């Protein structure tokens, strides 16, 4: 398992953002669903080693992120797209992706080719030399995905990756996700249920800091059977049914 969390908690001020999450995630694309404020981003930030857990145990890629040396090892093999991607407006697409390739301590000889490959994979080849300040929101999101995959990560964490993408780009992105998931653990946090249905082999649903469902998208769909859950698609009805049950 590439991610093993045991009774993980995270407190932000007086708020319990993550309240005792236990989960194990292996290779493939894993969807993290939940309403706003459910704790998805906090959980992902802990997995990205940006913030430490308040309590509980976390192992990533077989290493302990609380140890400096092991955390560094994890970070070399990690890709992370935060919910709010900060960027340097004067950087070009290539400069931005290269900057993070260097911060991930990729071997210098590999950097240029890896950057070009990542930029091509997200379909931004024709914008490679464009300044970030001139790009649309969807393009910036793809730049963020490019920096996340530039080091060919074994653990890829994507927080709301399809926000701002148009339908055509979302379809292309789901295909990229499935491709990436063949050799790595890809965890996608989203509130868009259709993204999960199209690309994820497994899914967990979070509510109020806890995981209230873990299984396959089909199993989530099945939870709506016999209930009057609302939703436009079967997966959405399963999502609503689980949430309603968790809150009752």
């Amino acid at each position: 398992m590439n991610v093993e969390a045991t009774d993980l908690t995270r407190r932000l001020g007086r708020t319990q953002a993550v309240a005792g999450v236990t989960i194990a995630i292996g290779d493939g694309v894993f969807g993290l669903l939940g309403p706003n404020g459910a704790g998805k981003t906090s959980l992902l930030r802990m997995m990205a080693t940006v913030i430490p857990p308040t309590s509980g145990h976390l192992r990533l890629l077989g290493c302990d992120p609380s140890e400096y040396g092991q955390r560094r090892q994890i970070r070399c093999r990690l890709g992370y797209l935060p919910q709010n991607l900060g960027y340097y407006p004067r950087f070009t697409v290539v400069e931005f992706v290269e900057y993070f390739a260097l911060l991930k301590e990729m071997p210098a000889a590999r950097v240029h080719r890896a950057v070009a490959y990542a930029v091509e994979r997200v379909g931004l080849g024709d914008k490679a030399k464009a300044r970030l300040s001139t790009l649309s929101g969807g393009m910036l999101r793809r730049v963020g995905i490019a920096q996340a995959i530039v080091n060919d990560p074994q653990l890829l964490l994507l927080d709301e990756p399809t926000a701002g993408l148009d339908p055509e780009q979302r379809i292309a992105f789901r295909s990229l996700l499935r491709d990436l998931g063949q050799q790595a653990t890809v965890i996608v946090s989203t509130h868009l249920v259709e993204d999960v249905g199209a690309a994820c082999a497994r899914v967990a649903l979070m509510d109020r800091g806890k995981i209230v469902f873990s299984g396959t998208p089909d199993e989530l769909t099945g939870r709506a059977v016999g209930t009057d859950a609302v939703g436009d698609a079967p997966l959405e009805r399963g999502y609503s049914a689980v949430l309603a049950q968790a809150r009752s």
Partner: protein
Amino acid sequence: MTGDRDHALDEATRTHDVDLDRVWVAVAAEVWRRRPGPIERLAGRVLRSPGLARALVTTPSLLLGWLIASTVVLVAGVLATHETGTPYVALCAPAIAAVGIAYAYGPGTDPAWELAGSMAVSDRMVLLVRALAVFGLNAVLGSVASAASGAAMAVTFGWLVPMTAVCALALAAATVARSANVGVATGVAGWLIAVVSGQAAVGRLAAAVTDSRLTLPYLTVAVGGAAVVLYATRTDRGVS
């Protein structure tokens, strides 16, 4: 001879698949390749890390606009010193350096701060390298301005110790509060208190940079500030 070569090429093309995507990526890598400037290359050699070197040259408070603003303030200080005889350069240089250090790295200051927090090159190293670079550059600028203002040697070098203390104070406050503005406010307020207290005690505005009895307190503040920064960055910035 040419015919043989053409034949061999045809044969190779016919018998081996050419992965055009791979070829294109190799071409693109060369075409898009960025050539680092001389400062970045030098920093890369000194720091032995291309990532740290790149992080250094993207320091917000080392960008051209910032340097021009600092220089303008120091030139105004030189002119004011010539006119009044009061060492204004020595009095304003520590505050300028403190502001620069507070804005060197952190949330709201560095656009990609959240992302940088998940990188192999550690936050603490980025902070340290940037802070040292800002400090060093401000020390050079301040020394030149102070020498140009014709101030006494004691004043020219006397402000370097208070500058170290004020910078450490600003950096510690910015790191703990995770806010560059809080760092600036604390550093500048601390320095104002030192200057005003010096004048109240001795009757001279320059006492804060010339009174040798203040050296020990300044050094204490500098060491204390550095210790706070090291403690606050001991794991990462997520403790809140």
